[in-house]
């Protein structure tokens, strides 16, 4: 098959009714601007850590907002807080603050 450099994500279902949304809600209360994310992926595209690992910032913070916390702490720990994502985010989200907040709230979900 010809490889165009694209691939298709595996379908996956998130059951929002089952997930414990407490932490997610707390995170969004503390940093409401995260709700303005348009999932454009600019943050992931510029990410320093993402260039050398499989770390995908957009994916992790999106999953956390949906109540999927498993592994998020370990993933966020790959971030170097370099700040590139903040400069490229079209919504001006304080992305470094998001990283630190998620780590703080999910520390025990290891």
């Amino acid at each position: 098959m010809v490889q165009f450099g694209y691939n298709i994500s595996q379908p996956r279902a998130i059951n929002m009714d089952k997930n414990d949304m407490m932490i997610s809600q707390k995170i969004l209360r503390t940093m409401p601007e995260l709700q303005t994310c348009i999932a454009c992926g600019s943050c992931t595209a510029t990410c320093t850590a993402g260039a050398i690992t499989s770390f995908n910032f957009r994916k992790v913070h999106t999953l956390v907002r949906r109540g999927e916390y498993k592994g998020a702490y370990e993933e966020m720990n790959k971030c170097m807080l370099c700040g590139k994502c903040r400069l490229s985010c079209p919504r001006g989200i304080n992305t470094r603050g998001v990283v630190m907040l998620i780590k703080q709230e999910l520390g025990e979900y290891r």
Partner: protein
Amino acid sequence: MMNYYDHFILPFAIGVTVLFTVILYKWIRWFVRMPQEDRRLVLRGIPTRQTLGAIGEVFMESLLHRRIWRVNPLLGYMHTSLAFGWFLLIAVGWVEASLQLPGEIIPLHAHVFFKFFAPEVDYGITGGLLGNIMDLLLLFVLSGVALAWFKRMRSKALGMQRTTKHVLGDRIALAALWFIFPARLVAESATSGLKHSTTFLTGNLGEWMVNTFGTEAIMHFSVYAWWFYSIVLGIFFVAMPFSRYMHIFTEIPLIFLRRYKVHSYEKAKSFDRFQIEACSRCGICIDPCQLQKDAGITNVQSVYFLRDRRYNRLTQEVAYNCLMCGRCETRCPVGIELNTLRLNSREKFAAMPADNRYAYLSSAADRSSGTSKVGYFAGCMTLLTPKILRAMDAIFKAAGEEVWYADKDGGVCCGRPLKLSGEVEAARRIMDFNRDLFRKHGITTLVTSCPICLKVFREDYHLKGIEVLHHSQYILRLIQQGRICVEHGHNSFTYHDPCELGRGSGIYEEPREVISQIGSLLEVDENRENALCCGSSLANIAINDAQQNRISQALAHELADTGADTVVTACPLCKKAIARNASQEVKDLSEVVAEALGQ
């Protein structure tokens, strides 16, 4: 001994006892808890010249407040009259009392309440002269008190746009302090009037009081007046070690410790207490803070940060909301290491470092290219501003420099942003990786375009044998060595000093020299040590986008006011921040140079 007792001295006596007990307790506790190395520095420093220097500095700063005079002469006078005036009142009062009071042992309070215990005021020449000197000193201090009152009402006259908002303890101590000297004046005058003193201030005022109200009334009144004076003194002394006035007794040991080269550090330690409690909450740090001026954030300035930290109620919000631009630190008259203290307060809020943190940093993360003794580290921010990267390439090429590119195709962050966020341990791992990389590729010169990287390379990497240069220094060197030529054109430039390059690393002149080889340089009003921050500093983890933008707008406005064609800066982050709001072109120094390259 009994001659010198009266019930009214009790509040004063209790106050003094509490004051010195608490101060001694604090001093000893802080000192004992200092790390071994710090204590060794102190012990080694005591028999040196530094001790003499410290004594001089205590006199100049703690009594005369020389640095505050530089901020504003009237404000300086206020502090001098209160501190030095009070000191002289104590010293001269001591002489006066020792000369005139009978008895072998004169207890402490008899000096303080001298006029009350003196058998007969101003008898003989010593008495008259000293009495007048004491009156003069009292007037000196009272003028300071009057200014302090005035400052509460009209702070702008003393060069301050905003003054500190004080906590309750401070207000009590402040109120007591305001009353001490007027109370002293009234009590001494009443007694002087009764004893027919002739000194110019208390004597005359006393005479007037007696003549107006009658001897009987003043006799009764004087008892209350002395009680009142003793009580306000007592209240002030008790409040002192728990309020801002602890600074009086903390600045003194701080000056000595600083002379012995004890410093604060990225991790909190006991010496920090000496700095934290040396803050007088003078509020001089409020005006320069752009968070206050432009972004409307009013509870995070150094004065409030130190206060919250001192009383153990520091919130993450306050600890994180600071650009660490250093504008306040350069103005603090006590010379407190404000940036370092802010930094080391963050660690307790940071996530616990996991053992496998950054385990992915193996040789796979080495994306470097080329071989040379000269290394170039673009830094994350430069990678986001590829024009700078291309300009540096052009310059290297023009100079015929072979370069080892550390991170042109993606690299590892320098670690400073992590450190600034309080993740000191995690930052170490990143730094170790980069340092090993530099060593592995055998470079002897390391050039970077980013002042943030520059600072961390210089301060934390311990790159012995590798010279670390900012590109402004490197470019200037190339020009001076004739390795590149730049053409002087008709363009006018203005230069923005990046915080980490200027105040942070002391590099002010090199970029200016390079620019003046290319065109004319128009300075902004607040430049060099006083330069504004672009607002995007990575040190601030709490600030939101709108607030950053307001700071950037204010800066862009200042820069536009120079009328220059182009804004030049020497930091990729500043460039991006200014460009958001600038009406002219914003370029990095390297771009300007690359465009002016001649043959």
